[in-house]
């Protein structure tokens, strides 16, 4: 059924449809609305779930770690500083192979403190072993949460999934979405049956000490499973399409790529803006396109190679930066072409939209214009020189 909803309510309704038994979270903007809605659903008796109010994000993540380990589907949501405070628990959840699903409302990292959107928070946790899926709009945010549980709980995967959605832009954006029925979701997502759990009838030790004889294998198994997820995600999205009637690739999505000469690679809500710009520029005969990355972990290097190998000029747009290094998405996109026979002539890297600075259509046009010139490395868009106290040239 079509519903006009705020993004946070879209996610809350999606989570309700997934029937988690335990929900735990700590307030942080711009995530808070999601769990407020869930708390109300529990209060109204619409959602049969234990809602645990905790004293920190560290404990929120630890509570759902404990409930998942007891074999109960669980949910949490966070953002920015909250995700960083959770960081060691985030690694722990993946290491313990607990199929948790969590939303991150993407937000900048302090200092300076800033509550607005970029993707520095989740990018900083890219190495933790979680699958990371980035939503472009609220329909994707809705559908990806349902997919996320199915993917996480697949017996061949058993890894947590983080659904990343741009803070405010999506969480507080009001859009029409097609809300599935409970019957559809139940058909796609069966009740969770844990492979291993804390059970007094079958006692097991979870979280043991692994010495140098076996630690590497535990880590390798996660890495290898992430690669398996690259194959499973498209299978699940195909099944999803049959039940819900919406088609996703789940790893990447091309827009006007076929004859494109200049292409932007990006993740998240900015892809909508880029598509609008493409539509305008195409009318003027410019051969521009977009490659949207949906899955950042696992990183679909081969799919990206295949999608871009015949493109002449590529700009990778990051809403995060590895300070003192480069832009994370650009670094990995470039690496996908290293040692390969075919490659774009130019792969430029641009950083934009930090701390909520709008990436306007003009910004996007500037990026395309820049692509007629020589390759840029970690180019910060829309810098205001008058705010810089020193000359960094």
């Amino acid at each position: 059924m079509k519903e006009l909803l705020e993004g946070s309510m879209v996610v809350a309704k999606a989570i309700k449809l997934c029937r988690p038994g335990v929900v735990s979270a700590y307030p942080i903007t711009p995530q808070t609305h999601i769990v407020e809605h869930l708390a109300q659903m529990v209060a109204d008796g619409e959602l049969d779930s234990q809602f645990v109010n905790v004293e920190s994000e560290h404990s929120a993540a630890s509570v759902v770690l404990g409930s998942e380990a007891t074999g109960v589907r669980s949910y949490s949501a966070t953002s920015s500083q909250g995700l960083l405070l959770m960081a060691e628990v985030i690694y722990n959840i993946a290491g313990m192979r607990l199929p948790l699903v969590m939303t991150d409302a993407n937000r900048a990292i302090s200092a300076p403190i800033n509550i607005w959107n970029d993707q520095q928070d989740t990018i900083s946790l890219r190495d933790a072993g979680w699958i990371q899926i980035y939503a472009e709009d609220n329909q994707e945010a809705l559908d990806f949460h349902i997919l996320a549980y199915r993917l996480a709980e697949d017996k061949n995967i058993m890894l947590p999934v983080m659904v990343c959605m741009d803070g405010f832009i999506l969480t507080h954006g009001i859009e029409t979405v097609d809300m599935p029925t409970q019957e559809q979701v139940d058909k796609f997502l069966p009740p969770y049956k844990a492979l291993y759990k804390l059970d007094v009838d079958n006692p097991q030790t979870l979280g043991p000490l692994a010495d140098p004889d076996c630690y590497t294998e535990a880590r390798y198994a996660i890495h290898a499973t992430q690669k398996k997820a690259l194959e499973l995600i498209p299978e699940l999205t195909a099944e999803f399409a049959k039940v819900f009637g919406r088609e996703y690739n789940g790893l990447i999505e091309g827009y006007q790529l076929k004859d494109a000469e200049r292409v932007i690679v990006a993740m998240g809500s900015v892809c909508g803006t880029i598509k609008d710009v493409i539509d305008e520029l195409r009318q003027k005969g410019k051969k521009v396109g977009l490659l949207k990355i949906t899955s950042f972990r696992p990183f679909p290097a081969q799919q990206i190679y295949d999608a871009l190998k015949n493109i002449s000029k590529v700009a990778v747009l990051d809403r995060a930066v590895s300070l003192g290094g480069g832009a994370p998405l650009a670094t990995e996109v470039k690496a996908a072409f290293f040692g390969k026979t075919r490659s774009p002539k130019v792969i430029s890297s641009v950083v934009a939209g930090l701390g909520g600075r709008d990436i306007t259509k003009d910004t996007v046009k500037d990026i395309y214009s820049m692509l007629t010139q020589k390759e840029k490395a970690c180019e910060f868009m829309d810098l205001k020189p008058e705010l810089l106290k020193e000359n960094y040239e």
Partner: protein
Amino acid sequence: MSNHLFNSGHTACAGCGQSLAVRLVIDAAGKNTIVANNTGCLEVFSTKYPETSWEVPFIHSLFENAPAVASGIESALKYLGKKDSVNVIAEAGDGGTADIGLQSLSGMWERGHDVLYICYDNEAYMNTGIQRSGLTPFSADTTTTPKGAKSSGNLRYKKPMPEIAMAHGIPYVATSSIGFPQDIVRKVKKAFTIKGPKYLQIHVPCPLGWSYPSAKSVDMGKLAVDTGLYPLIEYEYGKLSVRKITPKPVDEYLKAQGRFKHLWNNPDGIKKVQEVADNNIAKYGLKAEPQPEQPAV
């Protein structure tokens, strides 16, 4: 397979007070128990993959989050309708309890989860090499409060964890000691008759960290109680009961341990520790009344 729910064959040091306490706790709790454990000696010596000492479901996550993990386990059991038939224990050492894990523990207490929290108090960070914690006693020589020309060891007194627990209004707070094994068993069993958050702090002497012969752990526990340095107290719904003692001077306890060696020929230093014991004795009313003489016939 032994008859215990916590098996031997683990890699704890000879004379480890904690391993003795754990066996008593888990046997008293029974097989319908799930344990969430902070990082520390216990998890290291009892769960080295692929071996485990645990005959009950056990989870170790991180250094400071066992109370939150246990909160999640308890919430999951409630969701499954199994809470009434399963005990949940969260446990940690003194550093994991009084320092790095205090926030998580406070949250668990305040939320009212039906969990027994056990602090195995060996009075320093033993797993990392005897560094001072918030439960290290006054004057103890540790690797981060070393004795020296300008130092008499740890300057601070033990953090009053039982009082901090009481301030949360929880229904059961107690201390115990491996010097009194039956006291541990009784208190664990008592705790599980009470719904809500429970706190039990058990004194577990550590031969390595305290520097005494490994056969003397139980004796050290007894002496700590009998001097008044480690009062055995029990608050049940706020009502205090204590184990009465005929107090021994602290000298015997201090002179049995290398961590207090710098006090051995320092009467002023011993006096200050005696004040700690005297304060405990007065505060909790530990002193046994003299037995009335038999009336003459």
